[in-house]
């Protein structure tokens, strides 16, 4: 089943739109600057709508069924969020309008800043970063500048555990700092001895994901933070996994100095097939003035004593990390979610996320090898490999799940687990849905022994069969080229 490219549907002379009539006198065009050809497709509106409708049907999405992609928190995206974000007084605001004319929007941003500070235990918050990785870069730049402004010029190193997501070392590198990797111990915690051996006055800080990417809460969290602080370093928290901690623990209370949130994970905003996300960054008191600008401040207007909101750039700001103030459309959705849930709802969210994960883990342990078998948080990692079915790999299990109409877990991450399958059910899945997923995993484990080729050949009933990724990389075709000009 395949769909033609939009270019292949093109018929010269068609268009899907009629622009308004020109209602002003003509000015001559600068002919020497005009382009000669514009090879865009020409399709009618109905052809276009059908094209995209057919494409959409080739996708699996969260609204189809369970999507337990570890580390991504694919929880249900409430529809009220969409209704909220499409209100005309939000979608129609120009970011450079006079502050007095955008008070409704600034109010929401201010409230979300305050709410995230409260949830995370931070003194300051920026909503500007566009995604998690962007928040990391922001946070690492803040840590770097803080150390430089203290005169600690020799500090050039960020410690990153080997279980960290690839964006952590990549963000560090972009900030101009050096990455030193810290191994994990046999319980999945940061190896304390290894950490100690790397602590020195070269350390800007440590980037910690907690719960970590194995889904485990580091049992030595407080000691780790204390050790890093003692050597003059800061602790960055990768907040990708905050869904386990909402109302359970505030990372700021435990001493985390900087942390990004992922509104597209924890706060239920749609993932959009790969964005837009939003990665607000919270910081401890001593870092507030380093935040990227601007942040929203509340002022009391003199005349009428109504709160008034303004955009303000912190004094030692690292500078803006993107245009304007952040992904406002995503911010409205996250605000709506927090208003719907309140403190109680957030806590129950985390509790049920952790409940679902532990329950699924217990249902499949023994059949799947669990390399770090402790109580997990909102997700867990098993090996997608069986000793008595050596030719079956995690990838095959993932592809076989597709045949059964569910989305596979994250595979091959974290890198420290052999043939990793990283499973995050999220709290919005019912017991029935988690049970169903467990039964599929158990069934596939049997198939792996009895009919391994069924897995290796999977998927069998997806819109396409297994794709040739090697060919894609060896002979890259990265754009449509019309047949006659190839």
């Amino acid at each position, binding site marked *: 089943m395949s769909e033609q490219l939009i270019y292949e549907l093109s018929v010269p002379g068609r268009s899907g739109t009629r622009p308004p009539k020109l209602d002003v006198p003509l000015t001559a065009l600068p002919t020497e600057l005009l382009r000669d050809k514009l090879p865009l497709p020409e399709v009618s509106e109905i052809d276009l709508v059908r094209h995209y409708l057919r494409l959409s049907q080739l*996708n699996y999405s969260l609204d189809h069924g369970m999507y337990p992609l570890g580390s991504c928190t694919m929880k249900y995206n409430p529809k009220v969020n969409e209704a909220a974000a499409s209100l005309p007084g939000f979608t129609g605001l120009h970011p450079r309008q006079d502050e007095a004319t955008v008070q409704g929007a600034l109010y929401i941003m201010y409230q979300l800043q305050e709410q995230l500070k409260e949830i995370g235990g931070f003194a300051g918050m920026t909503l500007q970063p566009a995604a*998690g990785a962007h928040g990391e870069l922001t946070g690492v730049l803040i840590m770097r500048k803080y150390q430089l402004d203290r005169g600690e010029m020799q500090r050039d190193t960020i410690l990153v555990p080997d279980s960290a997501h690839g964006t952590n070392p990549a963000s560090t590198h972009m900030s101009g700092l050096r990455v030193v990797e810290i191994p994990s111990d046999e319980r999945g915690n940061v190896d304390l001895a290894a950490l100690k051996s790397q602590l020195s006055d070269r350390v800007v800080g440590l980037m910690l994901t907690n719960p970590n990417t194995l889904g485990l809460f580091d049992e030595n969290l407080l000691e780790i933070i204390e050790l890093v602080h003692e050597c003059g370093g800061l602790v960055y928290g990768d907040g990708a996994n905050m869904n386990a901690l909402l109302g359970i623990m505030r990372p700021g209370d435990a001493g985390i100095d900087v942390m990004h949130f992922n509104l597209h994970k924890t706060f239920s905003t749609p993932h*959009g097939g790969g964005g837009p996300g939003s990665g607000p960054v919270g910081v401890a008191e001593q870092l507030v003035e380093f935040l990227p600008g601007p942040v929203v401040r509340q002022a009391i207007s003199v005349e009428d004593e109504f709160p008034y909101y303004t955009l303000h750039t912190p004094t030692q700001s690292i500078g803006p990390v993107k245009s304007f103030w952040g992904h406002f459309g995503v911010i409205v959705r996250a605000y709506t979610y927090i208003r719907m849930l309140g403190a109680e709802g957030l806590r129950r969210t985390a509790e049920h996320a952790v409940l679902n994960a532990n329950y699924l883990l217990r249902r499949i342990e023994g059949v799947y090898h669990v390399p770090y078998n*402790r109580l997990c948080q909102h997700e867990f990692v098993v090996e997608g490999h069986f000793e008595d079915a050596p030719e079956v790999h995690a990838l095959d299990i993932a592809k076989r799940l597709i045949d059964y109409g569910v989305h596979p877990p994250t595979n091959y991450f974290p890198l420290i687990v052999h043939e990793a399958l990283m499973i995050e059910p999220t709290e919005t899945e019912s017991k029935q849905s988690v049970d169903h997923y467990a039964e599929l995993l158990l069934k596939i484990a049997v198939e792996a022994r009895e009919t391994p080729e069924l897995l290796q050949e999977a998927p069998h009933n997806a819109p396409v069969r297994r794709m040739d990724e090697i060919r894609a990389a060896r002979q890259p075709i*990265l754009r449509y080229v019309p047949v006659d000009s190839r």
Partner: protein
Amino acid sequence: MVYVPHTEAERREMLAVIGVESMEELFQDIPAAHRYPQLELPEPLSEMEVMQELQELSAASLNANEAPTFLGAGAYRHWVPSVVNHIIGRSEFATAYTPYQPEISQGTLQAIFEYQSLICDLTGMEVANASHYDGATAAAEAVIQAVSASRMKRKKIIVSPYVNPQYRQVIHTYTQGMGLEIAGEATSGALAELVQLVDKQTACLIVQSPNFLGELESLEGLAAEVHARNKKTLLAVATNPLSLGLFTPPGAYGADIVMGEGQPLGLGLNFGGPYLGFYATREKYKRNLAGRLVGQTVDKEGQRGYVLTLSTREQHIRRERATSNICTNQGLMALAAAIYLSTLGKQGLRQVAELNYQKAHYAAQQIDALEAFSVLTTKPFFNEFVVQCPAPAAEINEFLLNGWMFDIIGGYDLSKDYPDRQNQMLLAVTEMNTRTEIDDLVHALAGFEAHRILGGDHE
């Protein structure tokens, strides 16, 4: 409870399977002193109450779509065809994630492949990635591409002062730890002067056309001049993609990188985001490119399909040696841009671009005819131009908004970024501005003159 479907009986059953007595026991690894904080958050509301509150907040701002608006400076009010939001609102696109499993993500993958193709066609380039966060971060990634292509040997970059000031600021932010020399911002901005700065150390020259003042830079011959001074220096051009419906794209002038803000391609204003950083380069730099790339391939039965490819450039494989840290990008916004470009198509895009050009020129002529206002833009321009005003731009905007018969959202105060540009305003005119709106603006500006002469007080 909203969004958590578990019943009490199910919870108990599940806790029993896990082998714990209570929810709290699941959190035994969390330091007791910090466990279960009291969060001070507003009480939860029903959907009806939340929407009522949000409707009030929506009404508390002035919607630029409902007032004559002449504000641009990096974000533009354009007509978004109804099909765009209809399609990007579909759950199949909106509630999927990055297409890691190509067999069940062909919809997203093919749409992004089409987006990459459309961006190449529009910019006149050979390879486009699946998106950056916005125009400013795309500009910063261009610097990183150029510097890392030189293996950190060339550490000077040259930036025109008329590259969008936000892009320039973000370049400074991103590169603050890289030890780069950033030259050019203190020049007059004349291309000849910028080219003179290109030397052995120069990784790239970044210009923008239409530039921040709305003018089309004369890119003819620029690439050759840059490469004549240093054949390894990359020419990166930021552009407004809608202007390319009409004007020769930077790719045809030999640019090495073309990028910018994709918001004009069917994305609402949304108070500044989410927008779209589009990014295109030459075939030979495809392995230096940041971000996701979708490639065409076949499945095991030979059927055409699409996958994420060349991922050894990326953070999840290459970690600290990746070309960028970007992971989640602007997938849904790239889809919107692809739908927009396909809906308008070859003719429509040109027509909309021309409407922008014509209306902006009409507005400029009318304003220039006023006694106290004059248009400073002398080079060809697209849909933005600079007006010298008889008073600070802020004062005029205040009059347009509050002192005139109805609200008009005026232009951008250039003195905010260019202190020597006192009393200068950048006005944007798009297809959304009717002749009546433009005439009203002109009357209002004339009214400002009169009001100044009479010394009236509009407060």
